[in-house]
């Protein structure tokens, strides 16, 4: 019921944003939307584990990610506002930008809590639609290329998921059930036909990697995050990846109840290690700062899937990692927008000495770097450490060593670019052209990074309970 109200509210607000040309009215729509989103989150927290509208059931994983999107969407919309204000956009493109943001956030939020594979699929389609509007915001040839690749690869992945669902329906036909909801799949997992289930897992996993950002479909996401405006890129690099994670996690939970588990683990580990490898290759030689952040996301998702496949404490760590990553990565993207305003370039060759031009922002970048590479004060350190522990306990020693070596190289590549940005003087820069950027614009980045540390080192009781319940979804 409440979900219906939320969806209708989203539609009304996005319609209002699209057709309204008045600045004040537009921004008040955004505030109303945030209020709606948060009351929706809090309501769902209250009715946890109850089925709503037949297809939705907010379990603890869904609630965790829902609260995450609630937290991330506030700074995302605020930075979106700053972005539009500094670019002097016309009302039409502004309206389209915020409409797409609102629809993207809502589609992700509802996808987290849906309990039916087809419903997740539908909302994944909607995220593709709205994300492509965001990527094409600038309407030049590069943006067109990015959006074309994104749409094409996402369309193919969505078709793959659909084929997977068809195979799944063949698989449940033998078991004599007709209900494709996850609850019924969990309950009847042992009676499913293993052959079709295998095929189905392959296709669904491949399809969702386009959203999650893993081998083989990761390429679309990189161009998308590069070309989308930074506030939208922050959403694509965090909450949208979580949609892919939810899809894979829930289907993996079905597989985990069948004898196919070791086979599925092998596939996931192969995909994950290859993803970390690809991320390493690009991170060590990349010169575009925004794409570097995007590849860092590929690396983290590889680690998450490794943790999930290793099992044990790894599942806990994977969920913790994906939540913390959704706080850390957006803060880097938000800060990137200010870097771009200073240097008017994404290339590492044109930037430098950032401490001189924006102290608060430089510290935010430094802290973001420490967080994203999971050095000890950062929250991701805890989850990464637990993932390594789970790999060790599951006797994947060689994989562990390989991943550690790759991660070291990633830190080197990431670090050399970041320190170039922060400390080395730039080649040529006209200092009179540089705008002064208020330190307050970095506040949200500090808060997000701080939240990631807080949740990892002194987690509130509610957070721990939700995490532990989410782990229990996988037997």
């Amino acid at each position: 019921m409440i979900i219906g109200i939320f969806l209708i509210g989203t539609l009304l607000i996005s319609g209002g944003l699209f057709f309204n040309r008045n600045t004040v009215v537009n921004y008040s729509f955004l505030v109303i939307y945030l209020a709606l989103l948060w009351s929706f989150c809090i309501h769902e927290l209250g009715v946890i584990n109850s089925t709503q509208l037949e297809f939705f059931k907010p379990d603890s994983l869904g609630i965790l990610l829902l609260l995450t999107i609630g937290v991330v969407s506030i700074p995302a919309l605020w930075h979106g506002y700053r972005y539009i204000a500094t670019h002097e956009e016309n009302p039409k493109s502004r309206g389209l930008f915020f409409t797409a943001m609102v629809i993207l956030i809502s589609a992700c939020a509802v996808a987290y809590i849906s309990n039916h594979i087809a419903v997740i699929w539908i909302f994944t389609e909607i995220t593709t639609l709205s994300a492509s509007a965001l990527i094409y915001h600038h309407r030049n040839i590069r943006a067109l290329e990015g959006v074309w690749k994104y749409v094409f690869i996402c369309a193919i992945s969505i078709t793959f998921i659909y084929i997977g669902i068809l195979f799944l329906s063949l698989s449940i036909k033998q078991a004599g059930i007709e209900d494709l909801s996850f609850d019924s799949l969990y309950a009847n997992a042992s009676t499913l036909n293993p052959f079709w289930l295998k095929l189905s897992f392959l296709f669904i996993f491949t399809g969702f990697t386009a959203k999650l950002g893993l081998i083989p479909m990761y390429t679309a996401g990189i161009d998308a995050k590069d070309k989308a405006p930074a506030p939208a890129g922050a959403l694509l690099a965090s909450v949208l990846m979580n949609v892919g994670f939810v899809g894979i996690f829930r289907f993996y939970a079905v597989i985990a109840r069948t004898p196919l588990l070791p086979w599925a683990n092998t596939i996931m580990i192969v995909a994950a290690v290859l993803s970390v490898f690809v991320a390493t290759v690009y991170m060590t030689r990349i010169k575009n700062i925004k794409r570097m952040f995007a590849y860092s996301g590929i690396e983290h998702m590889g680690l998450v899937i490794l943790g999930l496949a290793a099992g044990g404490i790894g599942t806990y760590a994977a969920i913790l990692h994906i939540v913390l990553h959704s706080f850390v990565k957006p803060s880097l993207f938000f800060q990137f927008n200010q870097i771009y305003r200073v240097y008017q370039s994404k290339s590492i060759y044109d930037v430098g000495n950032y401490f001189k031009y924006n102290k608060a922002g430089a510290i935010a970048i430094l802290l973001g770097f420490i967080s994203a590479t999971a050095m000890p004060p950062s929250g991701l350190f805890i989850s990464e450490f637990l993932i390594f522990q789970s790999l060790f306990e599951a006797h994947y020693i060689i994989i562990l060593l390989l991943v550690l070596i790759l991660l070291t190289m990633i830190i080197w590549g990431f670090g050399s670019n970041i320190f170039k940005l922060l400390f080395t003087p730039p080649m040529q820069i006209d200092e009179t052209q540089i705008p002064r950027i208020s330190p307050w614009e970095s506040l949200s980045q500090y808060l997000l990074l701080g939240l990631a540390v807080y949740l990892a080192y002194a987690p509130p009781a509610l957070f721990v309970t939700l995490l532990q319940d989410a782990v229990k979804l996988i037997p």
Partner: protein
Amino acid sequence: MSLLYVSIANRLLTYLRILVLQGFILFGVTYLTLTHINTANLIFIMLETIVFKAIAVPYFINHVIKRNGITREAEPYLPNFVSLIIVTLIFVATIILSNSIKDTNLDKTYFVVALSTLFTGLYLIVSRKKIITHVIGYLIIENGVFILSLAVGNEMPVLVNMGIMLDIFASVLILGVFFNKIGDVLKNPDVNLLRNLKD
């Protein structure tokens, strides 16, 4: 059959005719297969196949080709003869694969046709240069998936409806929104021009 033809076809107009032909074939197959679902749904599905697959989308692509002045050569990377061999191999492989499956729940004909259509579509995408042929390849994949959904359609009409949603979604998204724009921004619709985003 139409798949073999598509592998050697050279002109874009031929591709379109093949799409139309496949649309009509699907229309017939739908009528013959889905005997157990209610009439309103059947009419809806058949209407969708005939309107979208056989008429609207090919017509629209034709419009795009004319408007943007795309040359009529398909420009494959490989000679036609090799394409023909590869597509034949795909056929043989899927037949062997489907014979190795021992499952009474599935009609093998649908499975073979669907899988070979799917792989041929993928092959078309990787072996042709133009963006518009990529789109056509994608539409062929969709036709294959649609056949697969028909195979389970009698028990679960919901899934067929979902497939139709996918169809409409893709047609609207890929064709409606972007191809017009691609023509505006990009005068020469060769996929090689969309190669600047890399590291």
